[in-house]
């Protein structure tokens, strides 16, 4: 028999003692054989009982009875924990300190080994991940809801645009064109506003949409609402009446308009005959803006729930349309954002009145639509019509651009007859004419002015522009009772001469 090997100096406990992982070994009868320093450290408050020989059940019971465990009734916890560990299933428990441990059982030759590790950070990470996932899920659901709702709201101005485009394709009279274009412009700007709001809609739940409270003239909003819905109401044979108001509200213009647009849109949808009336009532410190219709009305039961998310009134069928029941909920949420309250009064079969109550604003702070002033918007020539005859395309374009920047409607042409025809076709007259002196075919600017005055009256103010500085042509122009400017035309000189001819013809020459 070979000599026995010298006893090894290796001691497993020596090694295990220095590992931070807690380790406790129990014999097959579940009595503690020993534990390492990591285990003792994790359960520091029980070092008096963590002695060889203590049973696993007693150890767990001590853990529970010393209120180390944050898991409700201690007896039931001990039973459940023992059952899991005996079945080789890891358990987790939380301490009152807020930390979390995981105990994992392992079969070893000596019996059962339990490893214990602090999983607090891991658990918190899990919780954070779960929370983030839940938020993302909610945001995703919210975004989906609002995308659906926004697509519903976008249909309103798009429907208006379709009607207007159809009208334009028909025999639209010249006089009706500006109004139709303005209505189109408003519809496009409504879409623009909605898309702008859509960019932020995902932030609504998280408080990401911030209301910009300002003093807002109510009339500015009502005008836009009227233009937006007038054609839709007419299409349905309804009369939409908006009673203008001089009041100023303290509100967010876009959000308030969206609430009112929602009210009017619903009123048109649920009214078959009669009218829709939009108006205001002034209170001591507030304004009540109301949208009343002669529609189908809403039962008392439904009135209390109509602002709930996804709630749709089942007794109000919408032929050809499927609402999501979000419009009024969004309106309510926007109202909350702007510090307003919305309400409804209704009689089934007789109609409804939706209203929003907003604080009164300060007239001095009232925000008027234009933030940048320019001659195009409000200059002395804004809205005037000028007839321009110039054969050089570059000059014609440059002069047209300059005049248009001053808010002037320009009819430019190489041929004077063509320009005259354009005015005659429109049934309007130019306020002023500008013509080049030398035109193709030997035509002179003086002759052009004669033609124009024959068509539009002898008092038509005319300016001849010329590159000639010879005495003869200039004398000819002056002799014809016309004014001239030498090329290149200076904008200030043109402006001063135009002003003189249009507004101060009896005063001395300004140039």
């Amino acid at each position, binding site marked *: 028999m070979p000599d026995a090997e010298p006893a090894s100096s290796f001691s497993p406990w020596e090694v295990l003692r220095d590992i931070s992982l807690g380790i406790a070994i129990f014999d097959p009868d579940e009595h503690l054989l020993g534990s390492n320093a990591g285990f003792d450290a994790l359960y520091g408050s029980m070092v008096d009982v963590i002695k060889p020989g203590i049973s696993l059940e007693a150890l767990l019971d001590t853990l529970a009875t010393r209120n180390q465990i944050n898991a409700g009734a201690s007896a039931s916890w001990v039973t459940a924990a023992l059952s899991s560990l005996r079945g080789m299933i890891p358990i987790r428990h939380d301490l009152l300190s807020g930390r979390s441990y995981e105990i994992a059982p392992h079969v070893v030759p000596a019996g059962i080994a339990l490893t214990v590790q602090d999983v607090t950070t891991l658990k918190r990470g899990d919780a954070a991940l779960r929370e983030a996932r839940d938020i993302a899920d909610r945001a995703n659901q919210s975004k989906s809801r609002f995308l659906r709702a926004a697509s519903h709201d976008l249909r309103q101005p798009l429907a208006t645009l379709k009607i207007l485009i159809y009208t334009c394709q028909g025999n639209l009279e010249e006089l009706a064109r500006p109004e139709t274009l303005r209505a189109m412009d408003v519809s496009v700007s409504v879409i623009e506003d909605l898309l702008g709001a859509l960019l932020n809609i995902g932030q609504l739940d998280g408080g990401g949409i911030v209301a910009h409270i300002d003093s807002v*003239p109510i009339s500015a909003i009502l005008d836009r609402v009227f233009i937006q819905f007038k054609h839709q109401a007419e299409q349905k044979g309804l009369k939409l009446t908006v009673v203008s108001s001089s009041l*100023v509200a303290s509100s967010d213009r876009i959000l308030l308009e969206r609430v009112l647009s929602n009210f009017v849109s619903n009123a048109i949808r649920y009214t078959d005959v009669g009218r829709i009336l939009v108006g205001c009532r002034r209170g001591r410190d507030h304004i009540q803006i109301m949208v009343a219709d002669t529609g189908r009305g809403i039962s008392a039961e439904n009135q209390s729930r109509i602002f709930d998310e996804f709630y749709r009134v089942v007794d109000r069928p919408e032929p050809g349309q499927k609402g999501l029941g979000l419009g009024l909920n969004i309106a309510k949420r926007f109202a909350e954002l702007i510090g307003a309250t919305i309400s409804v009064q209704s009689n089934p079969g007789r109609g409804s009145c939706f209203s929003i109550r907003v604080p009164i604003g300060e*007239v001095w*702070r009232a925000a*008027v639509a234009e933030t940048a*002033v320019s*001659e195009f918007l409000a200059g002395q020539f804004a809205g005037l019509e000028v007839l321009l005859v110039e054969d050089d395309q570059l000059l014609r374009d440059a002069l047209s651009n300059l005049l248009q920047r001053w808010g002037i409607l320009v009819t430019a042409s190489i041929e004077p007859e063509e320009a005259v025809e354009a005015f005659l076709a429109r049934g309007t007259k130019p306020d002023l004419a500008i013509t080049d002196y030398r035109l193709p075919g030997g035509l002179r600017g003086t002759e052009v002015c004669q033609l124009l005055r024959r068509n539009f009256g002898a008092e038509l103010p005319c300016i001849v522009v010329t590159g000639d500085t010879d005495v003869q042509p200039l004398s000819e122009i002056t002799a014809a009772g016309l004014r001239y400017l030498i090329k290149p035309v200076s904008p200030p000189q043109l402006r001063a001469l135009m002003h003189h001819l249009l507004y*101060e013809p009896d005063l*001395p020459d300004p140039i």
Partner: protein
Amino acid sequence: MAHEESTEIPIGSMVPLTGAIADDGIAFRNGAIIAIEEINASGGILGRKLHPYFVDTGPQNAASVIAAANMLIHRHKVHAIINGYNIGPQNAEYEPIADAGIIYIHQNTLLQHHDTISSDRERYFGCFMGDPADYWYGQGFIKFISWLRDTRQWTPRNERLAIISGSKPYSIVIARAIEKIAHMFGWQVVCGPRIVQTPTTSWQEALAEVRAADPAVIANTHFYAGDLAHFQMQFLENPINALIYLQYGAMHDSFVRLAGAASEGAIVGTVVGLLPDAIGQAFEERYRARFRDDSTARIAGQVHAAMHHYAIAAALAGGTAPPGGHQQNRVVAARLRSTIYRSVIGSVNYDSNQAATSYPNSTNDPSLGLPHLFFQIQGRDLRHTAIAPHPYDVAPFRIPPWFR
């Protein structure tokens, strides 16, 4: 003023010392003189004193103002031109000034300044409008009468509004701005804007049209003090229960002297007026002590403000430059834009188009704009009394004496 040609900084001023608005021109000249005396007494701009040169622009047409600019630039080599307003040239004077590359601060109150600047910011870097554009008068006026109505200081008998305009671009723009915004605040324009060729002292025809329209408010956007005095007197020959608003020119003491008791109750607005506070009053006292003429300190304040602002900006920029000194003058222009100056007429704060910001029309913060002031001529002494906006109001509105 001592003339030390080698070190002094020549400053030009184009002022209507003759003609229809000579009252303004004299006040503008006086405002420049008193400001330069104050600046020089404080050491000038980095030790260099200012020397003013004035050129009369009485005819108020493009030719006279362009000639004045050329004379100041070529003969006097001015580093800056600072004055009140010249209405006629329609910005034509910007061209020789832009060519010379000097600083120009005026109070032309013209919308077209915005378009000229935005058309070529590099070229017109030195051109500043020291007051807000005429356009703002329209908004401010409508808000003012709406404020009177909404705060129940006055109950209009209807919502009807009549607008009479002078024939200058300034008057037309204001009239159109009033017309454009009136409906938003519940007003209905029932007469006008009726453009009357001005100057004129004959308003009977226009007033007959106005009376027939039965308005609760009558606005006249012409701005010559004498013409407006005649308007007010002719209105009172057969008054109706309507507020009378007179544009700017009624700020002049000469308006009150001419219209006398008929002026009581009239309302006048200005976007560039002397503030009725301690700073403004102190200026008025200094002005009265310095100039014993009939000119109006309320008008002079605007040039005083512009001159001081220029001096501060030039000092911050490290000095001024004569014609041709584009580079240095660009630095001065940059300091003008970046430095808000609280003057005797309020805070001068240049916007992106180098025009003064208007409170409360384009900012709600009184520390960031020149106040659009509304005065009512009140009491037996016919005093211009500020009634809006807060915080510059010193007394409440009174129902005019012609109301029956």
